[in-house]
């Protein structure tokens, strides 16, 4: 929706730019900017998405059922929520999944990455850069761009369906393993298909190259990302790195990442040591991009100027690089799995005898996702805490919207109909997940 201008009668002349409903994002949010013609006094992302109280409704419920409910936080990253929640619950009860389970979960997670990034880049973000209101109209002039996007979405979705039973809300992924494992044949088919998608994998990057980041949102910023556990580039790990050089264990996230309630949003706001920070594909690239390999590495080096740590719009490029990387990594994981695959490996059924608490953090497609789950000796949830990437980056996103609007105002651009859509594009580059951000954290 384009913006509207309203004049407010206060002593100082205060003007307002509002976007009632940001299109092409996951969830319901608006933007409100108040300015005096030159400086911005208020810059807010208003989150209207209603609360669903996940940490409250699961209290006293069976932890196995609760881990099936938590992923309903979000559809775009349901597998991320499922896997992170399961890992926290397994830690709480002292269950150690098998190596094969861990690998299959990573593959499921990669399916989520490819699908989520493809949807964001091709259906939500690219129409901005090519000048269309949506992918439907974009497809008429750029059929090959959209068909590459849909092929990537399909492979991401199919990886999740084959491993997780469906690509939204994967019930087959459970504490202790899977109800049913994918057949060897299905994994082989995925491997072959992935190998055939390398050109499609580069399509988003190719389309984005040539579009310069907007200088108005340039600013030094903190990045946080989880150090991949195995020395490679992936979404699982135990230590969070901060671009100021500090590190902390994921178990300490509650101490380091504080959340507070703000009046204009059903989503809380996250801060690291009281400073706003970025998390997501760009942050991963800034902190661990040197671990990329093969084609993704080549492309990241080739287009290094597009991966600018101080510009949030580079997040689109970083996602496009990850698509290339994860297609390759998925193929490699399947190849390695198949060399010693145990298609009849049994799920370890949770056997709960004592109370415990578990923490798990992973890198969801949009950034760090944290779960703490406490279980009593009867297997009931005693407490749950979920912090989502969007809740973490909302404060810095609001700062960027302020920078963007001030930058435009100072260039003499005052028309809300021009500023509004530009602000929406900045919001989209973060790929926010509004459903995720809402209310999912417990007050301590």
């Amino acid at each position: 929706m384009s913006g509207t201008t309203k004049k407010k009668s206060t002593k100082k002349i205060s003007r307002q730019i509002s976007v009632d409903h940001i299109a092409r994002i996951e969830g319901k949010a608006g933007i409100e900017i108040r300015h005096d013609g030159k400086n911005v006094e208020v810059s807010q992302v208003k989150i209207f998405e209603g609360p669903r109280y996940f940490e409250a409704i699961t209290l006293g419920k069976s932890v196995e059922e609760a881990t099936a409910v938590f992923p309903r936080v979000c559809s775009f990253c349901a597998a991320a929520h499922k896997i992170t929640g399961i890992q926290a619950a397994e830690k709480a009860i002292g269950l150690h999944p098998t190596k094969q389970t861990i690998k299959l979960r990573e593959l499921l997670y990669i399916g989520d990455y490819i699908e989520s990034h493809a949807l964001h880049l091709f259906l939500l973000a690219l129409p901005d850069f090519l000048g269309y209101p949506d992918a439907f109209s974009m497809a008429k002039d750029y059929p090959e761009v959209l068909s590459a996007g849909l092929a990537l979405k399909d492979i991401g979705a199919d990886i999740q369906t084959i491993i997780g039973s469906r690509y939204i809300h994967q019930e087959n992924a459970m504490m202790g393993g899977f109800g049913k494992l994918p057949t060897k044949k299905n994994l082989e088919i995925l491997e072959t298909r992935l190998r055939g998608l390398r050109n499609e994998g580069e399509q988003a990057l190719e389309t984005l190259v040539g579009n310069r980041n907007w200088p108005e949102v340039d600013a030094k910023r903190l990045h946080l990302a989880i150090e991949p556990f195995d020395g490679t580039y992936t979404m699982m790990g135990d230590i969070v790195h901060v671009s100021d050089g500090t590190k902390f264990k994921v178990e300490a996230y509650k101490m380091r990442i504080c959340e507070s309630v703000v009046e204009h949003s059903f989503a809380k706001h996250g801060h690291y040591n009281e400073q706003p920070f970025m998390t997501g594909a760009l942050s991963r690239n800034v902190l661990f991009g040197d671990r990329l390999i093969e084609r993704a590495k080549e492309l990241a080096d080739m287009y290094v100027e597009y991966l600018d740590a101080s510009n949030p719009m580079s997040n689109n490029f970083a996602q496009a690089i990850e698509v290339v990387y994860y297609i390759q990594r998925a193929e490699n994981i399947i190849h390695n799995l198949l060399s010693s695959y145990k298609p009849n490996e049994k799920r370890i059924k949770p056997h709960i005898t004592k109370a415990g608490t578990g923490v798990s953090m992973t890198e969801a497609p949009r950034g760090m996702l944290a779960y703490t789950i406490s279980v009593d000796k009867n297997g009931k949830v005693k407490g749950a805490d979920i912090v989502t990437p969007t809740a973490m980056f909302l404060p810095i996103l609001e700062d960027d919207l302020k920078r963007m609007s001030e930058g435009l105002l100072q260039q003499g651009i005052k028309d809300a109909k021009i500023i509004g859509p530009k602000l929406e594009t900045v919001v989209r580059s973060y790929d926010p997940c509004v459903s995720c951000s809402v209310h999912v954290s417990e007050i301590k």
Partner: protein
Amino acid sequence: MAIIDGCDGECQPRVGVYALTSCYGCQLKLATVQKIMEIANAVSFESFYMLSSASKHPADVDVAFVEGSVSTEKDLEELYEIRKHSRILVALGACSVNGGVQSWAEGEMTHEELHAKVYGTGKIGMKGLQATPISKHVEVDYYLPGCPPEEDEIMYFISAFLFGTFPEPKDYPVCSECRLAGNPCILIERGEPCLGPVTTAGCKARCITFNVPCIGCRGPVPHDTAWFDSLAMTFKNKGISKDQVRERFRIFGAHNPNLEPMLKKIYGGTD
């Protein structure tokens, strides 16, 4: 009320896809069906905020698909507005049809208690409500259940509207499809707490085929035609307690008025 009436094959039916409070999975499912580009050519999406900046609200449409539960006052206002501007209104998915997982604590905690648990005393300028299915507030013409809905059902609904007919509801449980899928019964044979007997069919027993007991995401079978009576005693015989059954039913069926009477029938007044 066929939507192509009066069109003479010339006009495109106007469609709106809306979300109240939800995970956006139903819209995502709709947006990612294989034939989405064909659908986009056959209909005119007047409002589909998740995919298009050319969306309007309110928009006069022939068919509105509404995802999500009513969980805020704003949701309620929007829902009234959508109903006013839509010829046919379809409740899309578990939240819209049955109130969704956010209703799990229905009757256990008040809205104020839920709010305090999550936000403490922090002030928010907008008002939340206890989650309810949309049929509590407006007339709903058709129900498309699932968390998320299945692709073939989405296609069936859209095709039916395009052809000028109506989608028929499924009034039989998942068990019937599970038999056709050739699965062994994991409730009878293994004592798994499978909700197949009381859950609306349409998923082709997707989870049970993966060896996962049904969690009931498609909601209670309409018209109380579940095979509950014949299979219900099995829950009790397998040692699954009344509380366990109730808790599991309520994940996606907390607003089902038939739940307590059904439980009473098997377990009597005791736990």
